[in-house]
């Protein structure tokens, strides 16, 4: 059975943690494992839209506060930043982890069959994790995010039996193929402190968590096979109450197949049209 891995447990990730932990606890999933990953720490200013009772590393604080409520579920904190390469600076190596296998890292974060929720604050980290997914045969990644106060989005990238079921977002999302930002895990403390958070609302964080939570509920906890309910990408705007969904998969299963090779090389079996 899968592990549930939330990367980024600030705003959206925090609300998703609460909903997912409760759902896992009271489901038939066995074993019940929820991994919370974040290298960042809570600051007093975060209280406007993130709920926490103590300062400190977000993954550690979140796990400690949520675990007592859900005793059947193993909630594991991982206090590292997720990056694409381990830095050569030995002092930094314990603070970061790669999402998938690399030629230089001894361990990596993700495992086969993981359900991964990318709730980070930048496109570069999202791109790094999606790129790492190529090295797994079975993986589900949910890319979630919000900006401009009321806008939010969810994208479901699924790999099954070594093939892309939904479109690899790196193949058509320019913000992932060419990220306009840097991964905070690859920055110094001073550089991270200088990052502007922008305007976010707690309600939009909650809404993003609700949309992705409802999708996962229909995919795994209460399976819903009806075609009418199938979507791979969603965008919403709370300002005008609009929401639209899209299917992001090829009509012909043979198109866009990828095969696994050794770490560091991914070959495309059938070029996508």
């Amino acid at each position, binding site marked *: 059975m899968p592990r549930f891995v939330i990367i980024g447990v600030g705003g959206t990730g925090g609300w998703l943690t609460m909903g997912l932990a409760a759902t896992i606890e009271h489901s038939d999933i066995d074993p019940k494992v929820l991994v919370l990953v974040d290298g960042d720490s809570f600051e007093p200013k975060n209280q406007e839209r993130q709920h926490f009772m103590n300062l400190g590393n977000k993954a550690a604080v979140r796990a400690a506060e949520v675990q007592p409520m859900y005793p059947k579920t193993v909630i594991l904190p991982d206090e590292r930043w997720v990056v694409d390469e381990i830095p050569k600076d030995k002092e930094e190596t314990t603070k970061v982890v790669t999402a998938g296998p690399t030629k230089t890292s001894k361990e990596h974060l993700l495992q086969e069959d993981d359900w991964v929720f990318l*709730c980070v*604050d930048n496109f570069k980290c999202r791109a790094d994790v999606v790129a790492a997914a190529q090295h797994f045969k079975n993986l589900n990644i949910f890319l979630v995010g919000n*900006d401009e106060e009321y806008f939010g*989005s969810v*994208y479901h990238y699924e790999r099954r039996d070594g093939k892309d079921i939904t479109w690899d977002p790196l193949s058509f999302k*320019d*913000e992932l193929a060419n990220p306009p930002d840097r991964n905070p895990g690859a920055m110094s403390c001073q550089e991270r402190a200088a990052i502007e*958070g922008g305007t976010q609302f707690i309600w939009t964080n909650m809404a993003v968590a609700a949309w992705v939570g409802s999708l996962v509920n229909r995919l795994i906890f209460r399976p819903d096979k009806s075609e009418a309910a199938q979507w791979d990408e969603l965008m919403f705007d709370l300002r005008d109450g609009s929401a*639209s969904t899209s299917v992001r998969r090829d009509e012909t299963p043979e198109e866009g197949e990828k095969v696994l090779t050794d770490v560091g090389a991914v070959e495309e079996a059938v070029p996508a049209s």
Partner: protein
Amino acid sequence: MAFGSGTPAQAGKATVKYGSQNDTDGLFVGRTVAEVRGSRAAAWNIPTDARAYRGRDTVGDDYVIKAGDTIEFARRMGEKG
């Protein structure tokens, strides 16, 4: 909806989409993405930075829409978490 003077509409139709809004019309055929974007931007509230896609391929504003095309305008994913 007026496109102004320019290339006459060709046989067949094309579909233009943004979010939950879409329209299929022969008038789109032979028009550029820029022209169609301009004609729909206000009514559909298409962001200025929304990209135009034909399937999973990005097309530029100078792409001339063909019969049978589905052109989707899509904004980038949410950045913050």
